[in-house]
């Protein structure tokens, strides 16, 4: 049960950390929808 708990915490930590990093990146992009759309589409060659 403890093992499950630590995996749950690890999953949540990864998810929240990733969401925060993504939010920072979006803020750095100036929340520009056209740029973010390009990013979401995987169009990294621009």
């Amino acid at each position, binding site marked *: 049960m403890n093992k*499950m708990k630590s*995996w*749950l915490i*690890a*999953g*949540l*930590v*990864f*998810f*929240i*950390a*990733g*969401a*925060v*990093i*993504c*939010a*920072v*990146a*979006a803020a*750095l*992009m100036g929340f520009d929808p056209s740029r973010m759309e390009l*990013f979401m589409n*995987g169009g*990294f*060659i*621009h």
Partner: protein
Amino acid sequence: MKKEAFLNELRSRLSGLPQGDLEDRISFYAEMIDARIEEGMSEEDAIAGMESVDQIVSQIMSEIPVSQLVKTKVKPEKGHKAWKVVLLICLFPIWFPLLIAFGAVLFSLLIAVWSVIISFYIVAGSLVIASLACIIATGAYFALGDIIAGVGGFGAIFVCIGLSILFFLLSIVMSKGIVKLSHKMLIGFKTSFVGKEA
């Protein structure tokens, strides 16, 4: 609780078992209690130290196949009565399709539940693949000098890994839950065949 009361309760709860099997099991527990008494324990302490009747019944039920229980329950002591056989044959067009339909519903329910669980495992697996794709994309972003998009990709790696861990956990918990529930349902079904005479 006294030895006789304990064994009587056990006997009544297991009364649907085949006679020989029932006697074997009762004598096994009687010997176990006797051995404890010989070791110097009192009758009450010897029984208090044993598993409860519920636990013993559940354990025995998990060991006995359903077919054996149904056979014991259906098989009459003095042969089949003619009117029962005639009734069984005449009502065959009714009870047989019902039986098939019941089995099909149970089977489809089982398939549906397991499909949901398997789809959760697939989602978790696809998130692992997505995180690998994000690693490649992030590397490419940084290589092309787009630092901000690289940071975004880095965040996406973390999100994918986190979600895959959570989905794997959820799938494991659901699988364990379903296996446990199925086991309990099977025990309940088996128990319904025994102990009615109590």
